[in-house]
């Protein structure tokens, strides 16, 4: 295992740590806005993971340069196109979640999750 391969695994581990920290935040927090932010952390980690999977060792931006037709010279454009749509869907998800939070706040007059669960059990 050379040094570059090891560092690529370090990148994967850091992204996994980002994902797990979002996971922990989603489980740990009682405040629903914080839970939403932790969910955004997880989404960012997934997008970063897919972009790292599309990397090549000396790849340039996937915009065709005249005279450069080697397929190994460009990074993979397919994960980028998929993640482009994923980011916009994340924004829509955030909007819907905030709308749900506003409705919850109007209905229960609190945003504490355990408090809401306690009142729902009554």
């Amino acid at each position, binding site marked *: 295992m050379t040094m570059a391969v090891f560092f690529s695994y370090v990148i994967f581990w850091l992204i996994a740590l980002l994902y797990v920290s979002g996971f922990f935040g989603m489980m740990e927090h009682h405040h629903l806005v914080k839970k939403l932010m932790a969910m955004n952390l997880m989404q960012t980690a997934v997008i970063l993971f897919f972009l790292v999977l599309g990397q090549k060792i000396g790849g340039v931006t996937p915009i065709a340069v005249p005279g450069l037709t080697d397929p190994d010279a460009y990074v993979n454009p397919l994960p980028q196109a998929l993640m*482009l*749509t994923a980011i*916009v869907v994340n924004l*829509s998800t955030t*909007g819907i979640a905030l*709308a749900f939070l506003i409705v919850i706040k109007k209905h229960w007059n609190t945003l504490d999750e355990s408090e809401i669960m306690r009142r729902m059990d009554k």
Partner: protein
Amino acid sequence: MKSTTNSIILEVACRLLIPVLIVFGVYVLVHGEYSPGGGFQAGVVLALAVVLNRVMEPADTKKGYWTFKIIALAGMGPIIYLLTGLWSIPFGGNFLEYGHLPLAVHEAERHLYGILFVEIGVTVGVMATIISIFDSLGKVGDPDDHGSLL
């Protein structure tokens, strides 16, 4: 009493920024095939101009926003996309096959025009959806609340 502006610094900055944002959004849309950019980015930039206008105006405006009309505009986006896809079917192509569009240019150039039409649809849909979500989120408040936005 109705104030005429929310904050003078915000208003001056937005007056400078909003035309630039609109021009940049249209540039990103039509130049998206040659440089980073495209339908989603252009839609978000154009929506940012409108959102900046919403932030700029005073907080105690009682003016209701046109939320339902802009939902209808957001529905126009997928319809434009769908019509572009269906346009090539009477001329012998499949759904979304831009090479059969009835344009008197070379085939690769027809693909360019097809991509442009499709991205206009994406731009309209994304822009109107983001503005409508912002309006829906922002205008739930008490109508007697005169607090500033920020």
